[in-house]
Structures are given as structure tokens and as C-alpha cells.
């Protein structure tokens, strides 16, 4: 009973529910489509770069990263991890990658390409090709390359520039990124056309790109509303609603309508000073990947007055830019995708925060969303989402006098996240937040 009450502490948005439902619906619909003969692609999260092309080509996409999380949450992961270990992959690799590698080894070596019967959610069907991404970390393309041991499917690795903050402002730098991006996408389109045996519909791509940009603009504006005091929307609603914008899950017209509904609901809460939790004592920023398997942890913190008002740079929409004058949809897609990182560089440069893409956003979030503290979640087997966190912690303290609490976890090994131990650290951290609130005022 107590647990039931705790689960209701966060005042969830009604408009979140249809967006959350889209995730499962889309996944199951994709599976049905694939089983009826539609081509499937395994893809890494690619930050709006390759997805609109696949969507415009009417290709079903499954994301092994997401499937890794599903396997972890449903308890299916250990057998695939063991299989990856037996195949010779070091155990300290990205947990999601190990799940996929173990899964692929079982599917291709034992089951001759059939989906393993024990796989949760119907499994991941055999792909036509793999779409990797060089963005964020090495694992995101080396993992798909390693799948070549099992899959008779080619891999396309999407390039993703990673400029330094100062270097980014050298003359011609940004345009060189755009130039590479557009050429790269042109070749990618040719590759996809060759794989599926039909031509890209440019008008459909144009329309898809525009919808993607608009969906993400509205999604961004929703987060802007969360700057209000009290904050009307908790991070849990962000994570539940994000796949439609981040992965372009489901029909984009429908997604746009649902995000617009969400905007209206959040705006109404702002106007009526409705808070996402009963009493907002502390406003916090969360970095990076949440403990998907233990999200009710946030309800327990909400009961203490912790409101998570902003979160997870890696999942956020790009800061909007006007791309209406860019006529080539491939160039529009490229510029939009680059904006995911580059949107923060101007501010970061002005403030001389050379940590750039990964660290600077948290300084912006804590400042503009008026946070009292930061909850950092370093992950043992996801180093790309963890490396910058010590720097973020230092930055927040040095620049804003905002303290951080670091709670270790993992994306697959659930034992590494201990909610009870983390909760035991809540009270001392509240004292730290209170102290630094006084310091900031003085």
C-alpha cells in the first residue's frame, strides 16, 4: 500500500500517456510489418541524421540500444551477456552491446536466423542492414561492426563530427561539417535505395524532415515551460514521452498533435501554478541515462520534495533554428542533426566552458531552470555517458555553487544501482542544497 501511494506522488501529465503508448505500439507494429515482409534495419540512436531517411523510405527500424534496456528490465539480459562472454567479448564493454552481441550469436549460430523464442517483446528480427553512428562513442559503430561475425548484413556507419569548442568557430568550420554531412547522406540514400531496390521519394523526405523539425521544436518549447516555479512537469514525463521525438517513433503527424496537446497541458499547469510534485522544495537537474529499471526511485525522492525539472542532454531536442530557407532536405536534415551538439557551442564559447557539447548544457540547465542540485548517474558500462560527469560536478560548483550527488549504476547490470543506499544519501544532500542556497543568496 505504501508503495502504491509512493507511485502516485508525481503528478504525471495526462498527455504523456498516448506518447508513451506510441513506443510499444510502434514496436509491435514494426514487428508485424517485418513479419509480413517489410525490410528491417537495426539502428543506433543517430540524432535525427539517418532516421528521417529510413522513415521516408518506409523502412522499419529497431534500436538494439533500446532492446538492451528492455532485456535488462525483463530479466532476459543475463543469458545474452553470458553468450557474449563465451563469444570472447570483454565484459566491460557497453552492456547494451553485449546483450545484442549475445542475442545475435544465439539467433544466427543456434537458430539459423530465427528470433529466439525466449526474447522479450517478440525479439529483434533479422535486419536487412545495420545503421551505426559515430556520434558520442566508439561503441556505437564498433558494436555494429562486431555484429558482422553473425549477421550477413552490411553496416553503414553514419559520420558525426565532434568539434572542439574554440575550433568550431574557425572560419569555414561549420560549413565543412555541413558539406561532409550532405555528401555522406547522399551516398547513404544511394546505399539504402540499393538495399531495398526502390528510389527515395524526395517529396516524402522533405515532408518527413519538416515534421521531424517541428515535432522537436514543440518538444523543446515544452521544456522551456518547465523553467516556471513551481515546475509543472517532472523528468519522468520527459523520459516517457521522448521516443516519439528522439527516435521518430510512430506516425510523425500524430506525434506532432500529441506534443501540441502536451504543450497545452503544461502551459495550463504553468498558468495555474500546478506543480509536478506535492511540494517543490528542491529543483534538480538529472544527468545522464536514468535507471530505467528503478524509475519509482524518483517518486520516493518526489515525496521528499525533489522535483526534477530538466535532464539528460543526450536525449534532448536540438535548440530550434530556422531552417525554412534550406531547400535541400538532406542539407536541412544535416543542419538539424548538427544543431544537437552545435546549438550549445556559442554560449559555451562565450563562457569559456571548453568542455563543450557534453558538459556545458548542464551549466545552462542548472542556471536557467534554477536548480538547487544535480543528480549525476555514472554508469559502469556506459563510459560515454559518464566521462564528463566529474567535470560537470566541478563546473556547477565553481560557476553556480550548485552541489552534485553522484549515484553509480549501470544500464544492464541492475545490481549496481542501489535505491536504498541512494536514498540514504538524500538527507545529507538536502543539507548541502540548503547550504549552497544560502551561499548563492549571500
Amino acid at each position, binding site marked *: 500500500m505504501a508503495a502504491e501511494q509512493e507511485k502516485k506522488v508525481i503528478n504525471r501529465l495526462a498527455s504523456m500517456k498516448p506518447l508513451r503508448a506510441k513506443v510499444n505500439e510502434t514496436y509491435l507494429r514494426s514487428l508485424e510489418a517485418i513479419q509480413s515482409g517489410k525490410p528491417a534495419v537495426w539502428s543506433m540512436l543517430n540524432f535525427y541524421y539517418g532516421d528521417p531517411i529510413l522513415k521516408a523510405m518506409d523502412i522499419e527500424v529497431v534500436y538494439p540500444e533500446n532492446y538492451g534496456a528492455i532485456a535488462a528490465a525483463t530479466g532476459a539480459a543475463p543469458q545474452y551477456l553470458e553468450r557474449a562472454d563465451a563469444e*570472447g567479448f570483454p565484459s566491460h564493454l557497453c552492456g547494451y552491446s553485449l546483450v545484442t552481441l549475445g542475442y545475435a550469436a544465439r539467433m544466427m549460430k543456434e537458430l539459423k536466423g530465427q528470433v529466439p523464442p525466449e526474447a522479450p517483446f517478440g525479439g529483434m528480427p533479422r535486419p536487412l542492414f545495420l545503421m551505426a553512428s559515430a556520434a558520442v*562513442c*566508439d561503441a556505437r*559503430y564498433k558494436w555494429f561492426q562486431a555484429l*558482422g561475425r553473425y549477421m550477413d548484413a552490411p553496416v553503414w556507419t553514419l559520420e558525426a563530427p565532434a568539434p572542439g569548442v574554440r575550433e568550431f568557430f574557425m572560419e569555414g568550420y561549420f560549413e565543412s561539417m555541413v558539406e561532409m554531412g550532405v555528401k555522406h547522406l547522399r*551516398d547513404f540514400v544511394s546505399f539504402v535505395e*540499393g538495399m531495398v531496390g526502390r528510389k527515395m521519394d524526395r517529396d516524402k523526405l522533405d515532408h518527413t524532415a519538416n515534421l521531424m523539425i517541428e515535432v522537436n521544436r514543440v518538444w523543446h518549447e515544452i521544456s522551456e515551460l518547465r523553467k516556471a516555479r513551481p515546475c509543472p512537469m517532472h523528468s519522468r514525463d520527459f523520459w516517457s514521452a521522448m521516443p516519439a521525438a528522439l527516435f521518430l517513433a510512430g506516425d510523425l503527424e500524430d506525434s506532432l498533435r500529441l506534443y501540441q496537446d502536451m504543450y497545452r497541458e503544461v502551459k495550463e499547469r504553468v498558468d495555474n501554478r500546478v506543480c509536478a510534485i506535492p511540494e517543490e522544495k528542491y529543483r534538480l537537474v538529472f544527468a545522464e541515462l536514468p535507471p530505467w529499471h528503478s524509475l519509482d526511485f524518483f517518486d520516493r525522492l518526489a515525496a521528499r520534495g525533489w522535483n526534477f525539472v530538466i535532464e539528460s542532454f543526450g536525449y534532448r531536442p536540438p535548440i530550434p533554428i530556422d531552417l525554412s530557407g534550406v531547400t535541400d532536405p538532406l542539407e536541412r536534415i544535416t543542419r538539424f542533426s548538427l544543431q544537437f551538439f552545435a546549438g550549445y557551442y556559442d554560449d559555451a564559447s562565450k563562457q569559456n566552458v571548453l*568542455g563543450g557539447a557534453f558538459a556545458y548544457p548542464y551549466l545552462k540547465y542548472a542556471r536557467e531552470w534554477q536548480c538547487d542540485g544535480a543528480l549525476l548517474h555514472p554508469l559502469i558500462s556506459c563510459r560515454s555517458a559518464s566521462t564528463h560527469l566529474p567535470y560537470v560536478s566541478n563546473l556547477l560548483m565553481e560557476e553556480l555553487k550548485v552541489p552534485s550527488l553522484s549515484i553509480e549504476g549501470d544500464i544492464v547490470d541492475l545490481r549496481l544501482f542501489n535505491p536504498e543506499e541512494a536514498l540514504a544519501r538524500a538527507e545529507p544532500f538536502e543539507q548541502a542544497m540548503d547550504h549552497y542556497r544560502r551561499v548563492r543568496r549571500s
Partner: protein
Amino acid sequence: MSSKASGLARAREVYSHRAQRARELKAEGSKILGYPCAYVPLEMLTALDVVPYRTCGDIREPVTEADRALPGSFCPVMRTCLDCALKNRDDFLDGVVAIHSCDPQEKTARVWEPYTDYPYFHFIDMPGTVRPEALAYFRGQLDDFRKTLEAFTGRELSRQRLAAAIECHNRQRRLVRELYELTRPSPPLVTGSEILQVVKALMSLPVAEGNDLLAGVIADVGNRSDRPARKSARLLTWGSTLDDADVMQVLEFNANVVMDESCGGIRAYRGEVKLTADPLEGLADYYLKEITCARTFRQGSLSGGAKDYAADLQSRFGYLKSIVRDWQIDGAIMLLVRYCDPFAFEMPSVKDYFDTLGLPSTYIEYDYTAGALAPLRTRVEAFLETIS
């Protein structure tokens, strides 16, 4: 130069006191830039009379300072590298050139710059693939690097100067390959540990001095009377970073390591930069396509058909075939520095490739600390027993 030693003795001296020559050069007015990875085009520094100095870690130094900047479960090479920088061990450096050769390099660069106060810092972005548009982008990155170097030195990087520097570095590559030719006989004329010391010494000296050192070493080895003993097996090591002679000595306790395919061995020296009309094109081509670190994505073909795993392996590891044949390798040690994702993902596939060559191989992981030496020796001995 203050020392009168030459050949292998000089290499040992430089290896043991890497910073000494850099400090002398600094006192004489040279500018010295650090670089943490084999992918930085050193020719561009040499052409402007800037001394390149590889910033290495130290397996004996506990990481303390870097803890405030990087998490524990992170590439130990870059952690100790940054730790040494934060402890100001290389206090003669005028700056650092970092490059996006892998995720840890990139992420470390992001904190290296704000936590230090060098007059110069530049980050070169590097694509993950060898596609034409990626190559063009990388060439543009090198041009930006040129601009910052010119601003830093106040000198123009002319084509002539760059061409001369490329030739000088190519000569170094040829000399290193010549040195490795001396491991072809059985027993080899030079040990893996000695070569490692030479290569690390090269990373601590101006290229011309390095070339003189190499010429002396090669002459020295050719005339030596204390030839290394023939041991139970001739080994190839394959991995990311192997730059400490103590680690190599563990591998060589009962074997001859005759080829080291790591960035402390032959990797950066196996090819040569082509002198193109635009020298930056030749440099971009060499550094992106010719250095065979696991960080670069390669596959057999992208014709749109089914994947050919054998062709894929050939595109990624084909360079090893002639090494295994010509150096009469008995076994391969795939040495992985913990948390090195690019190489970790390769382990099963490179083993597949060695299997196609009929070469026994083993995968050994270590954490780049002196504490790893004893368990490393146990693993190597066990492997040698299986192939003897």
C-alpha cells in the same frame, strides 16, 4: 646533446629520462608541443621547428589528480596521461595537440584543456570512416590545425617546408621498418623490449635526432656480440598501447616478441606519407587510412549485397598476414588495455582472422598498472605452454 652514448645505450638513456632532452631543447628556445596519440600529424610540427613530444602515462604512478576530472572506469592510459599532465610532469610543454582518434582521447581532451593553462591547445576532429567525404573533412581539419600552428609560431607553413618534414618523417618510418627487419632472423638480433625503448625514445626527440638515433641503433645491432637468446616462441603482439618496457619484458620472459603491432611499436611506421601536390591531402590520407588502429571503421565492401565476413576480416586485418608469414610468428598475443572499446570489440574478430591463418592466439587484458605485471606473466606463460 649532453650525452655521449649512442645506439641502444642512447635509446635506453632517452627512454629512461624522456623529458631530459625536451628540457634542454626548451632551454635553447625550442617550442615543444605534446601529443597523446599516433594520429597527430607530427610533420606539421616539425615543418615549423616545433618539437613533438608524446605525452605518455606511467604505469607506476598512482592516479590521483585525474580523479577530479575523469571517472575510474575509463581508459587507464588516458587517465594516467592526464594525471601526469595535471601533476605538471611535462612542465616544458608549450601546449598540447589532441585528436579525436577514439572516444577516450576526445573526452579527455575536453577536460585536459580547461584543467591546464598551456599557451596552445588544439583539438583535431577525426572521422570514423575512410569514405571520400570523411577524408575531405579530415583534410579541412588539418588545414585548421595549420592555421593555429602558424598563429602560434608566427611562421608560415610553406609547401616546401612541409614536404621536407614529410620526407624526414618518412625516413624515420623506413628506419623503424629496417630495425624490425632485424627481428626476422631466429634468434632476432634485437629484442622487443629494446625496440620499444627505441620507439619511445623517438617519441621524445626531434625527428632528425630520432633518425640519427635509429641509424646508430641499427648499426649497433648489426655489430652486436650479445645477440638475444632464442626462446620458446616467436610472438606477435597486437593491441592499442604498449609503451612500457617492463610490460614487454614480461611478454619476452620466455619468448621473442618479434613484432609489436601497437602504437608503441610498428603501427605508426608501417606505411609512408605520399608527397602530393597538396601535402595536406597526403597527410590526411595517410593518417586516416593507412594507420591501422581499431578506431577506424572498415569493412569489405558496401555494394549493397550480403556481407562477406572473410572480405571484412581481410579489410580490417589483412596487413597481419605478411607479418605472420615473413616473421615466422608462432603465436599472437592480443593485449587489451582495460576499457579500450575499439580494440575490445575487435578481439573475437581478430582471433577469427588469426584462426584463418592457422595461428594460435590469446587475448590478455591488463589495466596499465605495474600491479598487472605478475598476472600478465602468468597468462603469457600459460599461452606459451599451449603452443610449445
